[in-house]
Every structure is written in C-alpha cells, then in structure tokens.
C-alpha cells in the first residue's frame, strides 16, 4: 500500500530545528561535564 508523507510546513521545520539546536547546546554542556568527571576519575591516564 502506498503511504503518503505529510508535508511539513515552514514553521514546523524551523521549530524542529530550534529544538535540535537547543538539544545540541544541552549535549555540549553535558558532555563537557562528563569529560571533567572522566578526568577526575583518571580515565585518560594511560
């Protein structure tokens, strides 16, 4: 059966992208904290 894709509107596309950039900033902060923690745990001492 053929499925029809729902076309996204300009505002939907832009809203989804804003959410992506918000999550990206969050990930940058989280992963920076994770690196600090790993350093504290001596994870890179090899």
């Amino acid at each position, binding site marked *: 059966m053929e499925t029809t*894709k729902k076309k*996204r*509107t*300009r505002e939907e*596309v*832009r809203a*989804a*992208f*804003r*959410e*992506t*950039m918000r999550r*990206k900033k969050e*990930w*940058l902060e*989280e*992963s*920076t904290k*994770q*690196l600090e*923690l*790993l*350093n504290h745990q001596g*994870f*890179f001492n*090899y």
Partner: protein
Amino acid sequence: MNTLRLDFINKRAPYLVKENPHAVNSYVFKTDTGTEFVISLQENSSIVPSGAYEFGINNPHHGRSPLDTKLKYTIFAIVEEFFEQNGDEAMLYLAETGDEKQSFRNRLFVRWFNTYEQRDMYFIKTAEGKMDGEMIFLAIISRITNPRLPEIIEEFDETISFLFDPIEEKSDELP
C-alpha cells in the same frame, strides 16, 4: 542504530578510542597535545524526517589541531565504523558558525571529508545560511550505495528550502 565495534575502530584509529561510560553511543579520546574529544551519534529527524544520526564533536577546551592527521584518522575510524554497521543510515553534521574562528573549526570536518581517501564511497551535501539571525552550517553524509539516498537528498533539500531566514531585499527607493 547498530552498535559500533570499538575493537574495529581502534584497529584504524591512531588515538585510543574508549566508550564514554556516562552516555550511550558516545566515545572519548585524547590527542598527543592533551586535547580531549567527545564524539556522539544521536538520532535526529529534524533535517531528514525519515531518520538520520547527528554526529556531534565536542572539544570543550577548543584545542587547535587542524594539522593533526592522527585526529582526522581517529574521527574517520568512528565514521567508517558507523557506516559499516549502519549502511542505510545518514549522518548529519550541524554547527553554528558565529565568528570566523568558529566557522573555520566547524567546516574542518567537512574539509577533512573532502580529502578523505575513501571520499568516493560517500555522498555529501552541505548548506549554510542564517536561521533566527545566527549563521548555521549543515552537512548530510551517506554511503552512495545507500538505497535510501534519493529520499534522504529530497528531504534534506526540502528542509533547507524552509529553514533559512528569508533574504531581505534592499530597495533602491529613497525613504
């Protein structure tokens, strides 16, 4: 996403890549100059609605290493293994490119990609423009053998056509 094989990554990567114990689908390594990197692959359907994985690179201390070929080959060992395990997926790379330095850093990944020995195996398309007044840079990467490639390109193009701020037309008329 199929899990990446760390032993395969490390057969090719000049730097020792480890799994990030604090996150899923995330890898860490340290370069000869002591610069630490976190790499992440996260599902993202905002650009390609049928599905893609966003390739995130975090270098929190912004260590400069454009000439470090070991860094390039370590990152590509992860990229290669992603496509080995997920041949019908697409990889998305996106970044804000605020100032010149940021812009240079963010495009480095794509520049490396274009000089990569196995470049012919991949399709890559980039786009750059302003969104809400901020410059952003996007790239979509897929194996050319990916059966989903036409759909991925179509969806990427459609998203880009909507994404960027409209260009303000300058009027020649006097106020």
